């Protein structure tokens, strides 16, 4: 079994690779169709802005490759912006469409409260709403590292795995069929984060 780490060559995936290496998981960095073919699970890591990120996905036709894999029942885990693009749209730098694999809209913390300090940076708790193997061995309200200015306020109830409280409550992880997403950075969340990555590889 091999984990594919999707590299859009926009930002930094060194941290994620370091975490995957620490866990001794076999992986392949995916930049082309050829790379995708050799993988059994996918991670879509995300740093940067939603708009740029989606443009890169489209121009490299990564969306088609992702859809093909999902149709073949391959699991995918979106991280941070990689989580956000799983949904319908975001209003970061104007309204931009996402991959629409899941229902929901990404908005700014500022849309809910002008006073909120953004980005939301640091360690915050994930309250488990629906139990799932992704969080196996992790207690509810464990800390994970977040850094983001946009958020998912709500989605279909049954897909929400955890919620997190900042100035408002938001969705910090989801799961629908073989599609998984986390707003936090598992690769920067020490034991808890490494456990989530391992759970994804082993059980999801």
């Amino acid at each position, binding site marked *: 079994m091999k984990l594919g780490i999707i590299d859009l060559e926009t930002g930094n995936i060194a941290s994620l690779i370091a*975490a995957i290496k620490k866990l001794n998981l076999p992986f392949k960095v995916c930049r082309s169709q050829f790379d995708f073919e050799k993988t059994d699970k996918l991670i879509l890591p995300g740093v940067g802005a939603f708009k740029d990120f989606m443009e890169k996905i489209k121009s490299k036709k990564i969306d088609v490759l992702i859809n093909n894999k999902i149709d073949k029942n391959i699991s995918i885990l979106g991280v941070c912006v990689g989580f956000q693009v799983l949904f319908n749209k975001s209003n970061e730098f104007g309204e931009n469409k996402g991959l629409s694999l899941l229902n929901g809209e990404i908005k700014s913390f500022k849309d809910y409260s002008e006073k909120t*300090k953004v980005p939301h940076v640091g360690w915050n708790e994930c309250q488990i709403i629906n139990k799932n193997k992704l969080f196996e061995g992790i207690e509810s309200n464990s800390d994970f590292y977040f850094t983001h200015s946009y958020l998912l306020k709500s989605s279909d109830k049954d897909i929400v795995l955890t919620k997190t409280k900042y100035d408002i409550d938001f969705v910090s992880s989801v799961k629908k069929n073989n599609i998984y997403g986390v707003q936090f*950075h598992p690769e920067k969340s020490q034991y808890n984060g490494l456990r989530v990555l391992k759970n994804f590889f082993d059980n999801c």
Partner: protein
Amino acid sequence: MLKKRIIISLTFLDGILFRTKNFKPDYRYTKNFIDLWSIDELMIIDISQKKFSEKYLSLISFFSTNCFVPLSVGGGINSLQDADLYFKHGADKIILGSGSINNSKISKEISMKYGKQSIIQSLDCRKNLDQNYYVYAKSGKKNLNLDPIILAKRAVSNGVGELLINNIDNDGSLLGYDIELIKNISSQLDCPIIALGGAGNWAHILELFNETDISAASTQNIFHFTEQSIISAKNFLKNNKIKIRK
């Protein structure tokens, strides 16, 4: 609820870990006794004359592959390409020095590519005899004659995500953070702020979190980098009702 962060800041001179006092290298450590599992975040800064040395770049890789917390890297960044180099070696965020603050192009370009959450602007401040605060560049040697609040606002509008506020005279003093300075800036900015410079004991960190609403305390000197001391700092803060990561 968002936890307060304890960030360890390490300064390197020609690849060797030093602590600094008033911005001058003062005491040498080895990186091996840093407890990478208890800290919330790590900052490393190159204070060497010659930046981007192989030694420093390999240090970034060392920390990036050994600590699974956010790693911020600073030292001599004057272009997007400089930042690219640090990101490529495993930085999660980069720290811009005061010297780059008048060049808005750098932070704009970096934020377009990596997002604003990946840029920390450091502001090295000093209270002058006229009782006003000024921002300094060139390791605290050059007064830019500019008000920290104005520069902080400018930085944020140019794409910076976090601010690192240091008082040069408190650096290495162990006398506590400059609460007045931090409060002034924090009350007028709506981004996360990290205080650096001056912590001598746990009570100084407690004072910082009680007196201001900022999200992170950074320190180099008080941690003698044993597992015990970071854990005991966290326990002390927790016992005093500060929300700290477990």
